[in-house]
């Protein structure tokens, strides 16, 4: 088909690393037609980002590639093979024929130039005769078209004056300004909150409908794929394992891997049932009780501080799992850190295991520490890279149980690793030799080492691929049922929280706007924010997602009215 805007044939990419050659992409062929949104999905390391970067010739120097990546201009009058063209020609292709939307909008924009200047830079790079005033007019025009309100003033704003979602709109404007036929969007919504994600997805859909642009969408989020993609390419270990129309793929996945991937996506109302789990004891003294809790971060000299948590009250009963959901900046992580004594409480009361955290002294809280476990978000940095997994997991014993001998500790660690389903041999390995999911399980083992009454899990699965996330969640549910600890489970993902929690609290701007059981909060939300949050969550089913999209549009229209 000569109408295709992008044609990749038998692409191979290899990297030179310290360990020798490493192959990242292995014989990938795919095509993107005019006005088509093609999603490339796969877990991290599957080669999807490398494939996308090849389209713009953005591979690092350590990479070598073979095969053909033919990009055609929108009019179809030029076509060029990105892999073999000269550097000059490549510069023309970038921007004119294909452009890119990056994952992190805050780093994709240069903080010391106005957004208008940055948009005009692209224009001037491709047309040096362009007048300054003309470039400005075009920048204003494109900003308006991507939905930045009041673009005549905003064109002179610096990136930090925009919110995250607006920054992503500016990045998309920069990609659109030269009117390319193809946009490569690498995880364009991963760094954004769910409600903002929905808006950006809408904008990308408009790119196709109004600007007639084709889009290559790289993502690991099946909900995003269902929302936007016309066609889906599933990559696994550098190869394309399945390719189909979006609806057909979601309805009847053919390849085993695709089935697994779709099955692992968490859905609302899908809680994991654990046999003979002790019911939370709501009559007993609560493990954690917050009353009108305030936490303020100190501001700069002469400025008021930032109120991260603003009058929050909740309680966690023994054996109960409380899920805390909210967007970034809503104060959910701050609450978790305050319970663990990592952040100072500035007002109200926070009782943790009978100790008052407002004005607590480290020395008096040390006893309680052995009864609290903590699982951190980032599996990459939660272990000391120089200690073996065994030493890391053994640390709680070495700190709190001075009476235990080395042999006893070793036996206990082996037991713990078994409980989180890590092979015994992993005890002697170093953290970097484990995958993200394995490290997160070891982290869970460390958190549970002293058989705590309370476990705080701060986004424990958000850095993991869906298939790994599923297993970590299952493990968490099993261990919770078995050991009966109370838990505060913090996440931005409603579906994940719903799977594990007895009760859910939704946070927004430092306050709890709604709380109750999963069925209450997610089945019949009363707060407008919860309603919008729920409606914004894309589901991995194109047909259902279309219905939800209209529902969301209605909610937003109602809010505006």
């Amino acid at each position, binding site marked *: 088909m000569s109408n295709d805007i992008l044609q990749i044939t038998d692409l191979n990419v290899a990297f030179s690393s310290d360990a020798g050659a*490493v192959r990242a992409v292995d014989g990938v062929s795919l095509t993107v037609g005019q006005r088509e949104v093609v999603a490339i999905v796969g877990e991290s*390391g599957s080669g999807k980002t490398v494939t996308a970067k090849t389209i713009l010739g953005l591979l690092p120097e350590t990479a070598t590639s073979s095969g053909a990546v033919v990009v055609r201009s929108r009019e179809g009058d030029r076509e060029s093979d990105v892999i073999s063209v000269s550097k000059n020609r490549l510069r023309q292709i970038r921007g004119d024929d294909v452009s890119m939307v990056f994952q992190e909008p805050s780093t994709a924009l240069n903080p010391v130039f106005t957004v208008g200047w940055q948009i005009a830079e692209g224009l001037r790079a491709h047309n040096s005769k362009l007048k300054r005033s003309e470039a400005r007019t075009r920048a204003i025009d494109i900003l308006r078209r991507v939905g930045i309100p009041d673009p005549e003033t905003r064109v002179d704003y610096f990136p930090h004056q925009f919110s995250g979602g607006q920054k992503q709109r500016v990045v998309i404007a920069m990609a659109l300004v030269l009117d390319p036929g193809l946009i490569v969007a690498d995880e364009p919504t991963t760094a954004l909150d769910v409600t903002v994600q929905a808006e950006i997805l809408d904008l990308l859909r408009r790119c196709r409908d109004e600007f007639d642009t084709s889009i290559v969408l790289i993502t690991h989020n099946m909900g995003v794929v269902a929302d936007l993609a016309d066609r889906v390419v599933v990559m696994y270990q550098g190869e394309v394992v399945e390719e189909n129309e979006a609806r057909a793929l979601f309805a009847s996945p053919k390849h*085993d891997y695709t089935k697994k991937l779709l099955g692992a996506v968490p859905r609302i109302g899908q809680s994991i049932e654990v046999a003979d789990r002790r019911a939370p004891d709501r009559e007993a003294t609560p493990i954690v009780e917050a009353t009108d809790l305030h936490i303020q971060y100190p501001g700069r000299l002469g400025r008021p501080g930032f109120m991260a948590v603003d009058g929050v009250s909740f309680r966690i009963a023994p054996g109960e799992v409380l899920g805390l959901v909210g967007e970034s900046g809503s104060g959910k992580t701050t609450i978790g850190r305050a319970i663990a004594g990592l952040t100072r409480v500035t007002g109200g009361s926070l009782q943790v295991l009978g100790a008052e955290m407002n004005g607590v002294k480290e020395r008096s809280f040390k006893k309680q520490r052995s009864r609290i476990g903590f699982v*951190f978000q980032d599996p990459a940095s939660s272990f*000391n890279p120089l200690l073996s997994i065994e030493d890391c997991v053994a640390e709680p014993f070495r700190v709190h149980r001075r009476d235990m001998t080395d042999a006893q500790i070793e036996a206990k660690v082996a037991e713990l690793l078994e409980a989180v389903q890590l092979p015994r041999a992993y005890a002697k390995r170093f953290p970097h030799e484990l995958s993200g999911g394995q490290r997160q399980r070891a982290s869970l083992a460390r958190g549970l080492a002293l058989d705590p009454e309370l476990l705080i899990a701060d986004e424990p699965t958000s850095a993991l691929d869906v298939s790994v996330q599923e297993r970590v969640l299952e493990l968490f549910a099993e261990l919770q049922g078995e050991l009966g600890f109370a838990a505060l489970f913090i996440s931005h993902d409603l579906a994940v929280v719903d799977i594990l929690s007895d009760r859910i609290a939704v946070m927004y701007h430092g306050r709890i706007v709604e709380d109750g059981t999963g069925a209450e909060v997610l089945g019949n939300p009363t707060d407008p924010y919860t309603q919008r949050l729920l409606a914004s969550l894309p589901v991995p089913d194109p047909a259902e997602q279309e219905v939800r999209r209209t529902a969301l549009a209605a909610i937003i229209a109602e809010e505006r009215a």
Partner: protein
Amino acid sequence: MTTQTGTPRRSLLDRLPILRQLRQSYGIQRGMLIAGLAITIVFAIVAIFAPWLAPYGYAQLSDDNGGFGAQQPPSAAHLFGTTVGGFDVLSRVLWGAQTAALVVIVAVVLSIFIGVILGLLSGYFGGWIDRVLVVICDAIYAFPSLLLAIVISIAISGGRSNLIGGILTAAMSITVVFIPQYFRVIRAETVRIKAEAFVESAKVLGASNVRIMSLHVFRNATRTLPLIFTLNASEAILTLAGLGFLGFGIEPTAASEWGYDLNKALADVSSGIWWTSIGPGLGIVLAVLGMTLVGESLNDLNDPRLRGRRVVAADSGEMVETSVVPAVGTHDASEGDNDDASEGERQ
């Protein structure tokens, strides 16, 4: 999957700082490192075996055949000739390597301990102790280092002294200049590591500050030390030579010192006597060059972005098992290994 491979445990040989980089290096970086190492090793050998290598003692003025005579041109008896004071130049140069090496070792050992401890405390606790220490270090930076060294050398020993005293004086004056460097590097690393999740995790466990600092922070903060160590060693030689050249070094009868010899050779140059300055000058240049080459190439090799690598063919290399869903079709409970070898594509 039972055939878990993972990254094999590295042998001790691979983990030693300089040897590991030597194996990783490639192309021109490797050439620089090897040249630097070769020069430095020769310097070390000369320093250790100076008593056997040198034909005469450093303060020897005569042998069985009578006095050496002053400013004698190179001959079979005196390969590099003799100095204005009547010493054998070659012997002075060889013995000078020993003095230089001793000063480097004492200076670096003294400054590394104090600098590292202060840096750890300052970075970990922050607050007023941090502010005071940083201001002091900045103040020391503001002085020309040689001037500072002169002042301290005068303060300690009145300017001149015997072997031990002279070496200690020179070393301590260098130490004062170096402590801020170690302090800064360790403090910066400590501040970074303090924010890592594993330090917070230890805090949540209730580990003591001493335990966190020694086990978690210190061991992770020392990665750049070999680098500053080599760069500082070369600077120490320059400072020592500078002190000697200006007359604040060690008495010629107490030890041989290149800077002092250069100073004494100053007048010879204009009267056509070239051999007295070449020896000590070359000694300084080569010792500094060798250590700087090692330091600079370690710096490049430590940074994966600067490290050169062999170019690979497009269709070469194994597909690394990066997947977490092990080999489709063969359903198995365990996860595949997530190898960091694919770091390239995560950039």
